[in-house]
Protein backbone atom coordinates (compact mmCIF):
# COMPACT_ATOMS: atom_id res chain seq x y z
CA UNK A 1 0.00 0.00 0.00
CA UNK A 2 2.79 2.42 0.96
CA UNK A 3 6.37 1.96 -0.08
CA UNK A 4 8.96 4.32 1.34
CA UNK A 5 12.36 4.04 -0.32
CA UNK A 6 15.44 5.76 1.04
CA UNK A 7 13.40 8.82 1.92
CA UNK A 8 15.45 11.79 3.12
CA UNK A 9 14.50 15.22 4.34
CA UNK A 10 16.62 17.97 5.77
CA UNK A 11 15.67 21.33 7.27
CA UNK A 12 18.67 23.56 6.69
CA UNK A 13 21.62 21.77 8.25
CA UNK A 14 19.41 19.47 10.30
CA UNK A 15 18.77 16.05 8.80
CA UNK A 16 15.24 15.17 9.92
CA UNK A 17 14.87 11.92 7.99
CA UNK A 18 17.88 10.01 6.75
CA UNK A 19 17.39 7.31 4.10
CA UNK A 20 14.41 5.67 5.70
CA UNK A 21 12.86 2.70 3.88
CA UNK A 22 9.88 0.61 4.86
CA UNK A 23 6.78 -0.97 3.44
CA UNK A 24 3.22 -0.89 4.73
CA UNK A 25 1.06 -3.73 3.38
CA UNK A 26 -2.69 -3.13 3.00
CA UNK A 27 -4.83 -3.51 6.12
CA UNK A 28 -1.90 -3.38 8.50
CA UNK A 29 -0.95 -1.01 11.28
CA UNK A 30 2.58 0.36 11.38
CA UNK A 31 3.59 2.22 14.51
CA UNK A 32 6.51 4.64 14.57
CA UNK A 33 8.18 5.06 17.94
CA UNK A 34 11.21 7.02 19.03
CA UNK A 35 12.24 10.06 21.04
CA UNK A 36 11.05 13.57 20.19
CA UNK A 37 12.85 14.82 17.11
CA UNK A 38 13.57 11.31 15.88
CA UNK A 39 11.79 12.00 12.59
CA UNK A 40 8.47 10.20 13.22
CA UNK A 41 6.33 13.19 12.35
CA UNK A 42 8.42 14.11 9.36
CA UNK A 43 8.05 10.60 7.93
CA UNK A 44 4.26 10.94 8.16
CA UNK A 45 4.35 14.43 6.67
CA UNK A 46 6.46 13.14 3.79
CA UNK A 47 3.92 10.41 3.06
CA UNK A 48 1.11 12.88 2.47
CA UNK A 49 3.31 15.52 0.91
CA UNK A 50 3.11 18.17 3.65
CA UNK A 51 6.89 18.08 3.37
CA UNK A 52 8.69 17.58 0.08
CA UNK A 53 11.20 14.75 -0.26
CA UNK A 54 14.82 15.82 -0.73
CA UNK A 55 15.76 12.36 -1.97
CA UNK A 56 14.24 8.92 -2.27
CA UNK A 57 10.72 8.00 -3.26
CA UNK A 58 7.36 7.27 -1.73
CA UNK A 59 4.75 5.30 -3.64
CA UNK A 60 1.21 5.24 -2.37
CA UNK A 61 -1.01 2.58 -3.92
CA UNK A 62 0.89 2.88 -7.20
CA UNK A 63 0.95 6.70 -7.13
CA UNK A 64 4.53 7.96 -6.91
CA UNK A 65 5.20 11.11 -4.91
CA UNK A 66 8.53 12.60 -5.84
CA UNK A 67 10.61 15.67 -5.03
CA UNK A 68 8.84 17.61 -7.79
CA UNK A 69 5.55 17.19 -5.95
CA UNK A 70 3.64 15.56 -8.76
CA UNK A 71 0.39 13.84 -7.76
CA UNK A 72 0.40 15.95 -4.60
CA UNK A 73 -3.31 16.69 -4.30
CA UNK A 74 -4.30 13.16 -5.36
CA UNK A 75 -2.00 11.61 -2.78
CA UNK A 76 -3.37 13.91 -0.10
CA UNK A 77 -6.93 13.05 -0.96
CA UNK A 78 -6.07 9.34 -0.57
CA UNK A 79 -4.34 9.75 2.78
CA UNK A 80 -6.22 10.84 5.88
CA UNK A 81 -4.12 12.78 8.36
CA UNK A 82 -4.82 13.22 12.06
CA UNK A 83 -2.72 15.88 13.77
CA UNK A 84 -1.53 16.24 17.33
CA UNK A 85 -3.31 19.59 17.59
CA UNK A 86 -6.54 18.33 15.92
CA UNK A 87 -6.56 21.30 13.50
CA UNK A 88 -10.32 21.32 13.17
CA UNK A 89 -11.73 24.31 11.27
CA UNK A 90 -12.97 26.53 14.12
CA UNK A 91 -15.39 28.59 11.98
CA UNK A 92 -17.27 25.51 10.76
CA UNK A 93 -19.66 23.30 12.66
CA UNK A 94 -18.63 19.70 13.30
CA UNK A 95 -20.72 18.37 10.41
CA UNK A 96 -19.31 20.98 8.02
CA UNK A 97 -15.80 20.06 9.10
CA UNK A 98 -16.53 16.57 7.78
CA UNK A 99 -18.44 17.43 4.62
CA UNK A 100 -16.32 20.30 3.24
CA UNK A 101 -13.52 18.33 1.58
CA UNK A 102 -15.60 15.46 0.11
CA UNK A 103 -17.86 18.02 -1.54
CA UNK A 104 -15.14 20.42 -2.63
CA UNK A 105 -12.35 18.02 -3.57
CA UNK A 106 -14.29 14.93 -4.61
CA UNK A 107 -17.27 16.89 -5.93
CA UNK A 108 -19.72 14.51 -4.33
CA UNK A 109 -23.38 15.41 -3.78
CA UNK A 110 -24.09 17.21 -0.50
CA UNK A 111 -26.93 14.95 0.65
CA UNK A 112 -24.90 11.75 0.24
CA UNK A 113 -21.84 13.21 1.94
CA UNK A 114 -23.93 14.51 4.82
CA UNK A 115 -25.50 11.11 5.43
CA UNK A 116 -22.05 9.51 5.44
CA UNK A 117 -20.71 12.20 7.73
CA UNK A 118 -23.51 11.61 10.23
CA UNK A 119 -22.84 7.88 10.14
CA UNK A 120 -19.14 8.52 10.82
CA UNK A 121 -19.95 10.84 13.71
CA UNK A 122 -22.14 8.11 15.17
CA UNK A 123 -19.29 5.68 14.74
CA UNK A 124 -16.91 7.83 16.79
CA UNK A 125 -19.66 8.36 19.37
CA UNK A 126 -20.44 11.99 18.55
CA UNK A 127 -23.75 11.78 16.70
CA UNK A 128 -25.23 14.43 18.99
CA UNK A 129 -22.43 16.95 18.38
CA UNK A 130 -22.93 17.53 14.65
CA UNK A 131 -24.18 21.10 15.11
CA UNK A 132 -21.54 22.18 17.61
CA UNK A 133 -18.47 24.25 16.93
CA UNK A 134 -15.08 22.64 17.65
CA UNK A 135 -14.33 24.94 20.60
CA UNK A 136 -17.46 23.61 22.31
CA UNK A 137 -15.98 20.10 22.45
CA UNK A 138 -13.41 18.50 24.74
CA UNK A 139 -9.98 17.62 23.40
CA UNK A 140 -10.86 13.95 23.06
CA UNK A 141 -14.06 14.80 21.23
CA UNK A 142 -12.22 17.17 18.91
CA UNK A 143 -9.70 14.49 18.04
CA UNK A 144 -12.48 12.00 17.31
CA UNK A 145 -14.09 14.59 15.02
CA UNK A 146 -10.71 15.00 13.31
CA UNK A 147 -10.55 11.24 12.73
CA UNK A 148 -14.09 11.24 11.33
CA UNK A 149 -13.22 14.21 9.12
CA UNK A 150 -10.27 12.34 7.62
CA UNK A 151 -12.38 9.19 7.15
CA UNK A 152 -15.08 11.14 5.34
CA UNK A 153 -12.71 11.44 2.38
CA UNK A 154 -12.67 7.62 2.20
CA UNK A 155 -8.88 7.52 2.29
CA UNK A 156 -6.92 4.39 1.49
CA UNK A 157 -4.49 5.11 4.30
CA UNK A 158 -4.81 6.86 7.66
CA UNK A 159 -1.82 8.67 9.14
CA UNK A 160 -1.80 9.62 12.82
CA UNK A 161 0.76 12.14 14.05
CA UNK A 162 0.89 11.70 17.83
CA UNK A 163 -2.91 11.85 18.04
CA UNK A 164 -3.06 11.61 21.84
CA UNK A 165 0.00 13.66 22.82
CA UNK A 166 -1.91 16.87 23.55
CA UNK A 167 -4.82 15.19 25.33
CA UNK A 168 -5.53 14.99 29.03
CA UNK A 169 -4.95 11.46 30.31
CA UNK A 170 -8.64 10.67 30.78
CA UNK A 171 -9.32 11.41 27.10
CA UNK A 172 -6.54 9.33 25.61
CA UNK A 173 -8.43 6.04 25.84
CA UNK A 174 -11.53 7.24 23.97
CA UNK A 175 -9.34 8.23 21.02
CA UNK A 176 -7.30 5.02 21.14
CA UNK A 177 -10.54 2.99 21.18
CA UNK A 178 -11.65 4.66 17.95
CA UNK A 179 -8.27 3.91 16.40
CA UNK A 180 -8.38 0.29 17.51
CA UNK A 181 -11.85 -0.13 16.01
CA UNK A 182 -10.55 1.33 12.78
CA UNK A 183 -7.60 -1.07 12.74
CA UNK A 184 -9.95 -3.99 13.40
CA UNK A 185 -11.94 -3.01 10.30
CA UNK A 186 -8.82 -3.42 8.21
CA UNK A 187 -7.84 0.20 7.68
CA UNK A 188 -4.22 0.67 6.64
CA UNK A 189 -2.68 2.89 9.29
CA UNK A 190 0.64 4.52 10.09
CA UNK A 191 0.79 5.89 13.62
CA UNK A 192 3.47 7.97 15.32
CA UNK A 193 2.86 7.68 19.04
CA UNK A 194 4.28 7.46 22.53
CA UNK A 195 1.50 5.05 23.55
CA UNK A 196 3.50 1.85 23.85
CA UNK A 197 0.44 -0.11 25.03
CA UNK A 198 -1.32 0.76 21.79
CA UNK A 199 1.73 -0.23 19.74
CA UNK A 200 1.98 -3.56 21.54
CA UNK A 201 -1.70 -4.34 21.13
CA UNK A 202 -2.51 -3.08 17.63
CA UNK A 203 0.68 -2.81 15.57
CA UNK A 204 1.66 -5.38 12.96
CA UNK A 205 5.03 -3.76 12.70
CA UNK A 206 6.87 -1.34 14.97
CA UNK A 207 9.57 0.94 13.60
CA UNK A 208 12.03 2.54 16.00
CA UNK A 209 13.52 5.81 14.75
CA UNK A 210 16.27 7.86 16.27
CA UNK A 211 18.09 10.87 14.86
CA UNK A 212 16.15 10.57 11.59
CA UNK A 213 17.30 7.01 10.98
CA UNK A 214 15.32 3.82 11.06
CA UNK A 215 17.16 1.90 13.74
CA UNK A 216 15.11 -1.23 14.06
CA UNK A 217 11.88 -2.72 12.74
CA UNK A 218 9.92 -5.79 13.76
CA UNK A 219 6.79 -7.19 15.30
CA UNK A 220 5.76 -5.59 18.59
CA UNK A 221 6.63 -8.84 20.41
CA UNK A 222 10.15 -8.73 19.02
CA UNK A 223 10.79 -4.97 19.44
CA UNK A 224 9.40 -4.79 22.95
CA UNK A 225 10.52 -8.27 24.02
CA UNK A 226 13.94 -8.64 22.44
CA UNK A 227 15.20 -5.32 21.05
CA UNK A 228 18.51 -5.88 19.27
CA UNK A 229 19.91 -2.38 19.08
CA UNK A 230 21.30 -0.68 22.16
CA UNK A 231 19.54 2.58 21.25
CA UNK A 232 16.19 0.79 21.11
CA UNK A 233 16.91 -0.84 24.45
CA UNK A 234 17.86 2.48 26.01
CA UNK A 235 14.71 4.18 24.65
CA UNK A 236 12.38 1.40 25.79
CA UNK A 237 14.00 1.32 29.21
CA UNK A 238 13.01 4.97 29.61
CA UNK A 239 9.42 4.78 28.37
CA UNK A 240 8.20 1.37 29.54
Amino acid at each position, binding site marked *: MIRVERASKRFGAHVAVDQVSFHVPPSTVTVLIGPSGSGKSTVLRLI*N*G*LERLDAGAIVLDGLPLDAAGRNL*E*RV*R*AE*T*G*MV*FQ*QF*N*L*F*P*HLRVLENLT*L*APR*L*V*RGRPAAVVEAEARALLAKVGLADKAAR*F*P*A*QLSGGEQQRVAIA*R*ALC*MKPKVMLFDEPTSSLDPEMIQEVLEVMKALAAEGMTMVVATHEMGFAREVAHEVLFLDGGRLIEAGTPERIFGRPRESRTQAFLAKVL
Partner: protein
Amino acid sequence: MDPLAALGRIVIFLLPTVPETIKITLVSFALALLLGLLVGVVRIAPRAPWTWIGRTYVDAIRGVPLLVWIFFIYFGLGRVLHLPQFVAGVLAIGICYSAYVGETIRAGIQAIPRGQWEAAASLGLSHRQAMQRIILPQAVRVVVPPVMNDFIACLKDSSLVSIIGLRELTRAGREYSSGTFVDFETWLVVGILYLAMTVALTRCSALLEARLRRPEAAA
Protein backbone atom coordinates in the same frame (compact mmCIF):
# COMPACT_ATOMS: atom_id res chain seq x y z
CA MET B 1 -24.45 88.94 16.10
CA ASP B 2 -25.77 86.23 18.38
CA PRO B 3 -22.97 83.63 18.55
CA LEU B 4 -25.44 80.74 18.42
CA ALA B 5 -27.03 82.09 15.28
CA ALA B 6 -23.56 82.44 13.76
CA LEU B 7 -22.78 78.83 14.54
CA GLY B 8 -26.18 77.82 13.13
CA ARG B 9 -25.39 79.62 9.90
CA ILE B 10 -22.08 77.77 9.61
CA VAL B 11 -23.73 74.42 10.23
CA ILE B 12 -26.38 75.14 7.61
CA PHE B 13 -23.65 76.05 5.14
CA LEU B 14 -21.47 73.02 5.87
CA LEU B 15 -23.96 70.23 6.48
CA PRO B 16 -24.95 69.72 2.81
CA THR B 17 -21.32 68.83 2.00
CA VAL B 18 -21.17 66.04 4.58
CA PRO B 19 -22.80 63.54 2.16
CA GLU B 20 -20.05 64.33 -0.36
CA THR B 21 -17.38 63.55 2.25
CA ILE B 22 -19.16 60.31 3.05
CA LYS B 23 -19.48 59.45 -0.64
CA ILE B 24 -15.78 60.07 -1.30
CA THR B 25 -14.86 57.97 1.74
CA LEU B 26 -17.15 55.07 0.85
CA VAL B 27 -16.14 54.84 -2.80
CA SER B 28 -12.43 55.24 -2.00
CA PHE B 29 -12.55 52.65 0.73
CA ALA B 30 -14.50 50.16 -1.38
CA LEU B 31 -11.71 50.44 -3.92
CA ALA B 32 -9.12 50.11 -1.15
CA LEU B 33 -10.80 46.95 0.16
CA LEU B 34 -10.98 45.36 -3.26
CA LEU B 35 -7.37 46.13 -4.15
CA GLY B 36 -6.26 45.47 -0.58
CA LEU B 37 -7.71 41.96 -0.58
CA LEU B 38 -5.83 41.31 -3.80
CA VAL B 39 -2.62 42.73 -2.32
CA GLY B 40 -3.01 40.71 0.89
CA VAL B 41 -3.58 37.43 -0.94
CA VAL B 42 -0.80 38.08 -3.44
CA ARG B 43 1.66 39.02 -0.67
CA ILE B 44 1.48 35.52 0.80
CA ALA B 45 1.20 33.63 -2.50
CA PRO B 46 3.41 30.54 -2.59
CA ARG B 47 5.13 31.60 -5.81
CA ALA B 48 7.98 34.09 -5.71
CA PRO B 49 7.14 36.67 -8.42
CA TRP B 50 3.77 37.37 -6.80
CA THR B 51 5.16 38.02 -3.35
CA TRP B 52 7.72 40.33 -4.88
CA ILE B 53 5.14 42.24 -6.90
CA GLY B 54 2.95 42.59 -3.83
CA ARG B 55 5.77 43.90 -1.67
CA THR B 56 6.92 46.40 -4.28
CA TYR B 57 3.37 47.71 -4.66
CA VAL B 58 2.97 48.17 -0.91
CA ASP B 59 6.37 49.81 -0.46
CA ALA B 60 5.95 52.14 -3.42
CA ILE B 61 2.55 53.32 -2.31
CA ARG B 62 3.18 53.66 1.39
CA GLY B 63 6.42 55.51 0.77
CA VAL B 64 4.69 58.46 -0.93
CA PRO B 65 2.41 60.93 0.89
CA LEU B 66 -1.27 60.77 0.00
CA LEU B 67 -1.21 64.43 -0.94
CA VAL B 68 1.49 63.75 -3.51
CA TRP B 69 -0.57 60.88 -4.89
CA ILE B 70 -3.52 63.23 -5.27
CA PHE B 71 -1.39 65.80 -7.12
CA PHE B 72 0.21 63.10 -9.24
CA ILE B 73 -3.07 61.55 -10.31
CA TYR B 74 -5.06 64.78 -10.75
CA PHE B 75 -2.43 67.09 -12.22
CA GLY B 76 0.09 64.55 -13.51
CA LEU B 77 -2.01 61.83 -15.03
CA GLY B 78 -4.87 64.29 -15.47
CA ARG B 79 -2.85 66.08 -18.15
CA VAL B 80 -3.31 63.09 -20.37
CA LEU B 81 -6.39 61.40 -19.00
CA HIS B 82 -8.49 64.44 -18.05
CA LEU B 83 -9.87 62.76 -14.96
CA PRO B 84 -12.76 64.47 -13.18
CA GLN B 85 -11.88 65.69 -9.68
CA PHE B 86 -14.01 63.03 -8.02
CA VAL B 87 -12.46 60.18 -9.99
CA ALA B 88 -8.92 61.44 -9.41
CA GLY B 89 -9.51 61.96 -5.70
CA VAL B 90 -11.14 58.58 -5.17
CA LEU B 91 -8.42 56.82 -7.18
CA ALA B 92 -5.67 58.46 -5.14
CA ILE B 93 -7.23 57.64 -1.77
CA GLY B 94 -8.32 54.17 -2.88
CA ILE B 95 -4.91 53.18 -4.21
CA CYS B 96 -3.09 54.68 -1.25
CA TYR B 97 -5.31 52.93 1.29
CA SER B 98 -5.18 49.62 -0.59
CA ALA B 99 -1.57 49.32 0.55
CA TYR B 100 -2.50 49.81 4.20
CA VAL B 101 -5.58 47.59 3.99
CA GLY B 102 -3.53 45.01 2.09
CA GLU B 103 -0.97 44.85 4.87
CA THR B 104 -3.73 44.54 7.46
CA ILE B 105 -5.31 41.68 5.52
CA ARG B 106 -1.95 40.00 5.07
CA ALA B 107 -1.35 40.16 8.81
CA GLY B 108 -4.82 38.71 9.38
CA ILE B 109 -4.15 35.83 7.01
CA GLN B 110 -0.80 35.15 8.65
CA ALA B 111 -2.41 35.16 12.09
CA ILE B 112 -4.25 31.96 11.16
CA PRO B 113 -2.26 29.00 12.51
CA ARG B 114 -0.21 26.93 10.07
CA GLY B 115 -2.15 23.86 11.18
CA GLN B 116 -5.23 25.20 9.39
CA TRP B 117 -3.36 25.26 6.07
CA GLU B 118 -1.97 21.80 6.76
CA ALA B 119 -5.34 20.34 7.67
CA ALA B 120 -6.84 21.79 4.51
CA ALA B 121 -3.94 20.51 2.40
CA SER B 122 -4.09 17.06 3.99
CA LEU B 123 -7.74 16.81 2.90
CA GLY B 124 -6.71 17.54 -0.68
CA LEU B 125 -7.78 21.19 -0.88
CA SER B 126 -5.76 23.35 -3.26
CA HIS B 127 -4.09 26.55 -2.06
CA ARG B 128 -6.94 28.55 -3.55
CA GLN B 129 -9.66 26.40 -1.99
CA ALA B 130 -7.94 26.53 1.39
CA MET B 131 -7.64 30.31 1.12
CA GLN B 132 -11.30 30.79 0.19
CA ARG B 133 -12.94 28.27 2.48
CA ILE B 134 -10.65 27.97 5.49
CA ILE B 135 -8.27 30.89 5.82
CA LEU B 136 -10.14 34.02 4.67
CA PRO B 137 -13.34 33.31 6.63
CA GLN B 138 -11.23 33.10 9.78
CA ALA B 139 -9.04 36.04 8.81
CA VAL B 140 -12.09 38.29 8.36
CA ARG B 141 -12.76 38.13 12.08
CA VAL B 142 -9.20 39.02 12.91
CA VAL B 143 -9.11 41.81 10.37
CA VAL B 144 -12.35 43.69 11.00
CA PRO B 145 -11.16 45.88 13.90
CA PRO B 146 -7.93 47.08 12.25
CA VAL B 147 -9.69 47.58 8.90
CA MET B 148 -12.28 49.73 10.65
CA ASN B 149 -9.39 51.83 11.94
CA ASP B 150 -8.16 52.20 8.37
CA PHE B 151 -11.68 53.22 7.38
CA ILE B 152 -11.80 55.96 10.01
CA ALA B 153 -8.37 57.21 8.94
CA CYS B 154 -9.64 57.17 5.35
CA LEU B 155 -12.59 59.36 6.30
CA LYS B 156 -10.28 61.93 7.85
CA ASP B 157 -7.84 61.81 4.92
CA SER B 158 -10.69 62.46 2.50
CA SER B 159 -10.29 66.11 3.56
CA LEU B 160 -7.09 66.18 1.47
CA VAL B 161 -9.01 66.09 -1.81
CA SER B 162 -10.36 69.56 -0.99
CA ILE B 163 -7.06 70.73 -2.43
CA ILE B 164 -8.09 69.74 -5.98
CA GLY B 165 -11.42 71.50 -5.61
CA LEU B 166 -13.74 68.67 -4.65
CA ARG B 167 -16.48 70.37 -2.71
CA GLU B 168 -16.61 68.28 0.41
CA LEU B 169 -16.66 69.29 4.07
CA THR B 170 -13.17 70.76 4.35
CA ARG B 171 -13.48 72.63 1.06
CA ALA B 172 -16.76 74.12 2.23
CA GLY B 173 -15.07 75.15 5.46
CA ARG B 174 -12.42 77.02 3.50
CA GLU B 175 -15.04 78.72 1.36
CA TYR B 176 -17.01 79.85 4.37
CA SER B 177 -14.07 81.07 6.43
CA SER B 178 -12.43 82.94 3.57
CA GLY B 179 -15.74 84.58 2.67
CA THR B 180 -16.68 85.62 6.19
CA PHE B 181 -13.39 85.61 8.15
CA VAL B 182 -15.15 83.66 10.93
CA ASP B 183 -12.23 81.26 11.10
CA PHE B 184 -12.40 80.03 14.67
CA GLU B 185 -16.08 79.05 14.59
CA THR B 186 -15.92 77.59 11.09
CA TRP B 187 -13.05 75.24 11.80
CA LEU B 188 -14.57 74.39 15.16
CA VAL B 189 -17.74 73.24 13.41
CA VAL B 190 -15.79 71.41 10.69
CA GLY B 191 -13.86 69.59 13.43
CA ILE B 192 -17.02 68.71 15.34
CA LEU B 193 -18.69 67.34 12.19
CA TYR B 194 -15.67 65.11 11.47
CA LEU B 195 -15.62 64.05 15.11
CA ALA B 196 -19.31 63.15 15.01
CA MET B 197 -18.70 60.91 12.01
CA THR B 198 -15.62 59.21 13.42
CA VAL B 199 -17.24 58.63 16.81
CA ALA B 200 -20.28 57.11 15.10
CA LEU B 201 -17.96 54.86 13.08
CA THR B 202 -16.07 53.81 16.18
CA ARG B 203 -19.34 52.76 17.77
CA CYS B 204 -20.33 50.83 14.61
CA SER B 205 -16.95 49.14 14.67
CA ALA B 206 -17.47 48.00 18.26
CA LEU B 207 -20.91 46.62 17.40
CA LEU B 208 -19.60 44.82 14.34
CA GLU B 209 -16.78 43.35 16.38
CA ALA B 210 -19.22 42.05 18.97
CA ARG B 211 -21.35 40.48 16.23
CA LEU B 212 -18.39 38.80 14.62
CA ARG B 213 -17.11 37.50 17.93
CA ARG B 214 -16.32 33.94 17.13
CA PRO B 215 -19.34 31.69 17.47
CA GLU B 216 -16.92 28.88 18.29
CA ALA B 217 -15.74 30.71 21.40
CA ALA B 218 -19.23 30.58 22.92
CA ALA B 219 -18.88 27.42 24.93
